[in-house]
């Protein structure tokens, strides 16, 4: 059997796998349409990014070590990392909310811009890939 035919068979098997995935219920329930514009007006977590980055810098807590408070420095660093992780989750939620908004808008619009949708598909895939 030739390689191109093997590709066809593998593609057919892949389709069955994708079919079963596509039929699974979505992980999150869609937000009601009325929430869309309200959600767009909500404050952005991304605006606090500089504070979080600053807090994660080792220099920010280094003076504690030099003044003999190494244990305290470790505790603070641990706490700050926990805060950063929580913040990361908030950013992820904000990202997903924006994707949800864009989907709802596309569904409601009589015209859809293919390039912008493509850009969002790519971003959406990029975000789901590491998780």
């Amino acid at each position, binding site marked *: 059997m030739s390689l191109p035919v093997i590709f066809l068979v593998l593609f057919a098997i892949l389709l069955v796998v994708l079919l079963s995935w596509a039929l699974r219920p979505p992980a999150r329930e869609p937000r009601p349409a009325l929430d869309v514009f309200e959600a767009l007006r909500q404050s952005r977590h991304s605006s606090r990014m500089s504070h979080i980055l600053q807090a994660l810098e080792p220099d920010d807590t280094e003076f504690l070590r030099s003044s003999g408070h190494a244990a305290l420095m470790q505790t603070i660093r641990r706490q700050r990392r926990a805060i950063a992780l929580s913040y990361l989750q908030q950013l992820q939620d904000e*990202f997903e909310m924006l994707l949800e908004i864009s989907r709802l808008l596309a569904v409601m619009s009589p015209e859809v811009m293919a390039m912008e949708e493509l850009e969002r598909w790519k971003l959406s895939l990029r975000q789901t890939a590491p998780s």
Partner: protein
Amino acid sequence: MVEPLQLQTAAWALTTALELSLFVQLLRRKLARIYPFFFAYLLSAILQSAGSAALYRDPNIDKLTFWKIAWGMQGLVVTIRALTLVELNRKVLSPYIGIWALGRRLLLGVAAVVIVYDLLLSKGQWQWLVMNGVRGLELAMAAVIVSMLLFARYYRIPVSPLQRALAVGLCLYSTFYVINYSLLEKVLRQYAVLWNFLGLFAFIASLLVWIGAVRRYTAVEEVRVPQTIPAELYGTISSEVNVRLILLNRQLMQLLHLENRGQ
């Protein structure tokens, strides 16, 4: 012990009985009007069964004529199945004008790529062109169904249980046909009767999925009125959302990178 040929005859009888049962239920539930191509597909499958039985009973028919009639009927049934698929896609996506315009182009592109790839395997021989053409169409249909379902899933477009069942039945049969035709019949030719039986089995499974969905069908499934917004508003907000998404993506990556470095 039951001979494979007897098993195949029994499977054929069962298939025809299930086809007729689905036919009656489609009429009783008035679904023949809502899904006319699916109804036509079922009718063509019933006629194909009857035609095949008549062909097998004719002792005077020569091999080439048999081949031409059999593949002609198969081609017709596959074409009507393709139209059923178009009908299904329309039903699911067309209430959403913008999505339908985008989805139509995407699905046509997917189908074209798959068919062209498959036809290239024919190497210019017309017998292979017909047979590979049917296989290409089957694979393209499966690819279109899966793309449509993924598309609907991404945009959270509701797919009714009946539409879902139609999609699953069509896709499973098409993928099985491709695997059967490409792999099993060629590699394990000595088990041809068994593989024919398995092909029928795949169709029986599809028929059972459809019968179950038609039995559970309620008219409420079809009622759906999507809200609309002006295209300009979509354009404005869409661009803004994209900018915010790109910025957020950058920040997420930056933070993840920092987090990984810290561990």
